[in-house]
C-alpha cells in the first residue's frame, strides 16, 4: 500500500498536511507531533512586510466551529526565510509557503523571493476574509484569480497551489480559471465569512466585526465544493474544511481530494494530524486500497 501522493512536482509521503494559520511554523506543534510523519506543513500566511494583524478578540466559538479574525499577523517573508525554513528543513514534512498580498505586486514579489529558497511549494492565499485590501478580492472573481495566478506563475517554478475561497457563487469557474492560468493544484476551502454578536454587550464578539468560519460546522459545504472542483479540474485538489477525524479525511478523498489539510481540529487535539494519517492508512488496509488514487476513484454517485 502506498500513502504517497504527488501534487504537481511536490511529493508527499502521506496526504495529511497541516493547514495554514493553524499550525504556526511547525515549532509549536513539534512538541506534540513528529513532524516527520506529516505530508507537509502549510505555514502561517506570509506577507512581504511583517504584520501585526487585527485587534483582539480575534476568536469566537460558534456551534461546531469557530470564527477567527487574526488578519494575517506574521513576521514577514524575510524572517520566515531566515528563521523558519532552517527549523522546518530538519524534518521530512514538505514546506508550503502560504502567501497573501494587498496587491498584485505583493504576490509577485513574494513569489520571486521564495522561488530562490528551500521551500517545496507556494500556496497562493487569495481567500483570506480578514484583511481589508486584496486577498479575497482576487480570489472571488474569474478575472481576479486569472490575473494573480498568471502573474505569480511567471515568477516561480515551485509547485503552485491556489487556495480558494468558498464565499463565491460558483467555485468551479474560479478553480478552472486557476488551472487555466498555470496553477499546479488548488486547495479549498478557506473560511466562510461569518459573524457572532454578544447580546449583553450588544457588539460583535470579534473586534474586527466579521471573521472566518472554520471547523466541523463547515464540513458539508467544504466537501460539496471539493467534490464539484475535483469533477471539473484535472490538476490535484487538496481538500479541507472541518476535518476532525480520519473518517472526515476519507470523505474528502472519496470526493476526489488527493490530499487533505487539517486546521481548526489541531486546536482541540494537537495530535490529530498524526491520528488522521494513521486512520487513513488503517482504512485503506481494511478496504484494500493500494493507493490514494484508487480511493479517489471509489465514490459511486446515487
Amino acid at each position, binding site marked *: 500500500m502506498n500513502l504517497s501522493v504527488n501534487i504537481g512536482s511536490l511529493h508527499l509521503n502521506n496526504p495529511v498536511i497541516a493547514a495554514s*494559520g*493553524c*499550525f*504556526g511554523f511547525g515549532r*509549536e*506543534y513539534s*512538541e*506534540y507531533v513528529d513532524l516527520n510523519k506529516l505530508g507537509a506543513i502549510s505555514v*502561517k500566511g506570509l506577507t512581504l512586510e511583517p504584520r*501585526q*494583524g*487585527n*485587534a*483582539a*478578540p*480575534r*476568536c*469566537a*466559538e460558534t456551534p*461546531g*466551529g*469557530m470564527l*477567527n479574525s*487574526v488578519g494575517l*499577523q506574521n513576521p514577514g517573508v524575510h524572517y520566515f526565510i531566515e528563521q523558519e525554513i532552517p527549523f522546518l528543513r530538519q524534518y521530512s514534512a514538505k514546506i508550503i509557503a502560504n502567501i497573501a498580498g494587498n496587491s498584485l505586486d505583493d504576490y509577485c514579489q513574494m513569489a520571486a523571493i521564495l522561488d530562490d529558497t528551500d521551500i517545496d511549494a507556494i500556496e497562493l492565499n487569495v481567500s483570506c476574509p480578514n484583511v481589508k485590501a486584496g486577498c479575497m478580492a482576487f480570489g472571488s472573481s474569474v478575472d481576479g484569480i486569472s490575473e494573480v495566478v498568471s502573474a505569480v506563475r511567471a515568477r516561480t517554478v515551485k509547485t503552485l497551489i491556489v487556495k480558494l475561497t468558498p464565499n463565491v457563487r460558483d467555485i468551479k469557474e474560479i478553480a478552472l480559471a486557476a488551472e487555466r492560468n498555470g496553477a499546479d493544484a488548488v486547495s479549498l476551502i478557506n473560511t466562510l465569512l461569518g459573524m457572532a454578536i454578544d447580546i449583553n454587550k450588544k457588539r460583535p464578539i470579534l473586534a474586527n466585526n466579521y471573521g472566518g468560519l472554520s*471547523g*466541523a*460546522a463547515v464540513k458539508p459545504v467544504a466537501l460539496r465544493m471539493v467534490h464539484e472542483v475535483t469533477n471539473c479540474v484535472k490538476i490535484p485538489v487538496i481538500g479541507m474544511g472541518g476535518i*476532525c*477525524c480520519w473518517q472526515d479525511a476519507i470523505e474528502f478523498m472519496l470526493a476526489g481530494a488527493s490530499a487533505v489539510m487539517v486546521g*481548526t*481540529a*489541531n*486546536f*482541540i*487535539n*494537537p*495530535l490529530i494530524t498524526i491520528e488522521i494519517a494513521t486512520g487513513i492508512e488503517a482504512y485503506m488496509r481494511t478496504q484494500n486500497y493500494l493507493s490514494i488514487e484508487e480511493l479517489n476513484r471509489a465514490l459511486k454517485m446515487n
Partner: protein
Amino acid sequence: MNKHLVEIVEKTQLNSDTYQFTIHAPELSDSALPGQFLHINCSSDVAMLRRPISIFDIDKAKYTVSFVFQVRGHGTELLAKKNVGDKLDILAPLGNGFAVNSTFKSVCIAGGGIGIFPLFALLKQYPDAHKTSIVGFTSVGKFVINDEFAAISDKFIYCTDDGSGGFHGNTAQALELQLQAGDLPDIIYACGPTMMLNAIAKLSMQFNIPCQVSLEERMACGIGACLVCACKTKADSQSGWQHSHVCKDGPVFWAQDVVWEN
C-alpha cells in the same frame, strides 16, 4: 509533551457556580508554576474548543494540581458536570508563570473575581515574605476561597463592588489606599478585569513598584500557533507596539510592557 489524560480525584462546589477540581498529575505537579494554565477539553464533542483555566494550587507531595473555575457558558457548564473518577484531557502546563524572587521581603497580590485563582499558588512561593492579599468580588454572595487567602496572608483585605462586605470598591482602589498609606511591597501581582489591571499598572508606575499582571484573552490552540489571543505590548518597532500572545508570551506580563488602552 504537555498533553495529559488525568483523573479527577476531588471535586468541591464552592458556591452556586464555582467549583474546585483536584487532578492527579505527577508530572504536572512537579513542573507546573503558579500563573501557568491548563487548557481543558470540556466535552466529548470533537468540535468544542478547549477552555483555559489557571492553576490554583499544586501539591507536589500528593502529586496533585487543583484549579477553581466559575461556570460561565457551555464549556464550563460541561466541565462542572464531570465527577471524581472521570478523566480530563488537558494540555498543561501552558504559558509563563509569575516571576518569583526569593529576596523579596514583601509582596502584594490583587485579584478581582475569577482573577484571584492563579494568585493562591503564587503566595505559597513566598513562605518568608510579608504577604498582603487584596481580593475583590462584585458582592459578598460571590466570595470564594477567602478563608484560604486570609489564612496564608499576613494582611488580608477584601472588597466588594456593591459594598455588601469589606472595603466598598474594587481592588485597585483598595491597593491605592495601601500604597498611599506607605505600605509599599517589593512587587505587586494582579489578575482580574482589564480595567482593574490597567488601574493597578498605573499605580505600580506611580509608586515605582514592579508589577506583574496575568491577562485573559479568548484562545483557540493555547500554544502560540493560531495567534488569536493577541494583546498589545511595547516594542522597539516604529509604531512602538506589537501583538504578543497571551497563551505563549503570557499570560503573565510585566505591567510596564503592556500597552494599556482606555
